[in-house]
């Protein structure tokens, strides 16, 4: 027997609003980081992915078209990083499209920016993007700057340790 229909109503309202809040958090904020269509899988190898992560956006001209599905080591033994992307399958991307890892602002999140090329052949599902530009790692950039300020010899190749023995400050 119902002691108070008002109580039951309030409990119902409480439970519903709680579930709605949970749903909002889960769907709107959480999973729907990319709520658009996908279906086209693309691969790209990079020397350096920096801070790129799963679910990082894939962007063309500033418009989000997909997300990063996974990141791992390339299976061909080259010790490069292989990024798997899931993009809108209605896109017609030429096979000379370039993929670059860029940063939002200076301290922002990293994302993959695609610059479509002009080729007549299109990338198919499971296709490979051949032209890639790795992420910029701040430390190496700073290292380069210090080198060019201090030495002036090898500009750009971060692998060589600065032979700045005698070349002064």
């Amino acid at each position, binding site marked *: *027997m119902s002691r108070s229909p008002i*109580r039951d109503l309030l*409990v119902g309202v409480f439970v519903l609003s709680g579930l709605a809040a949970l749903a909002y*958090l889960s769907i709107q904020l*959480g999973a*729907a*980081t990319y709520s658009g269509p996908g279906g086209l899988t693309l691969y790209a190898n990079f020397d350096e992915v920096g801070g790129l992560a799963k679910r990082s956006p894939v962007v063309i001209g500033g418009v989000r078209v997909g997300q990063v599905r996974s990141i791992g080591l390339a299976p061909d033994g080259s010790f490069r990083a292989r990024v798997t992307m899931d993009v809108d399958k209605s896109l017609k991307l030429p096979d000379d499209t370039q993929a670059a890892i860029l940063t939002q602002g200076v301290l922002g999140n990293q994302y993959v920016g695609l610059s479509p090329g002009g080729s007549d052949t299109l990338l198919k599902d499971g296709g490979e993007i051949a032209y890639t530009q790795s992420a910029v790692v701040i430390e190496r950039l700073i290292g380069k700057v210090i080198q060019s300020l201090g030495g002036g010899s090898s500009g750009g190749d971060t692998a060589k340790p600065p032979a700045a023995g005698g070349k002064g400050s």
Partner: protein
Amino acid sequence: MLDFVRTVGWRSVDNVYGLGGIASFGSRLVFETLAPPYRLRRVIDEIYNTGVLSLAIVCASGTAVGLVLGLQGYNTLVRFGAERSMGAVVGLSLVRELGPVLTALLVTGRAGSAVAAEIGAMVATEQLDGLRMMAVDPIDFVTQPKAFALFASMPLLSALFIVSGLFGGYLVGVGLLGIDGGTYVSSLENNIDFRNDVLGSILKSAVFGALVGLIATWRGYTAAPNSAGVSRATTGAVVQASVATLMFDYAITALWGVGV
């Protein structure tokens, strides 16, 4: 010296008994929750007592925390020119930690103490014995609905706390500090991940709910049958549940992994 050793020994054995006691009590609660009769009427009444009556304090506190987070967050972020990320800062703090933990502490203080006091008073006035003599199990009839209500209400209240907090952050950011509303919301949406953040948050609040449900009902059930006993049970319940919440918070955070 020997006396001291004896006391330590006694206390340890006592504590082990206590742990065993609460463990078997806990398993009874789980069993009674899963097994019929389900006593829907009483569960609904108890959800009213724990959930509905805690709504006001949870939403008010949530908004207040969101306001403060927004303000503090802004002050720090603006130094790096990163005000854009305010939504993320407020959102992640609330979802990952402040939502589940603060909600649990609030609910412990409000509803947990009430449950412990009620059950303790029932012990003192022989109401539980009365039930036993009518061949009704007090754990099934009295404690289980209360414990389950605490457990079930917690994730819901935590979500409402978080949403209130997000709203508070929005108020301060957009209303007071001039951040663009769209930036706030998109920063929120882009940086909160379901698997890492939201799911962990829900798990935490469910665990905290179970802890409060277990501890509050246990302290009430084992209270000494007099007014001093009831008061000790009530304060003990709040303290123990709060400490347990904080300890489990660390454990879950560490095990679940933070971020990527």
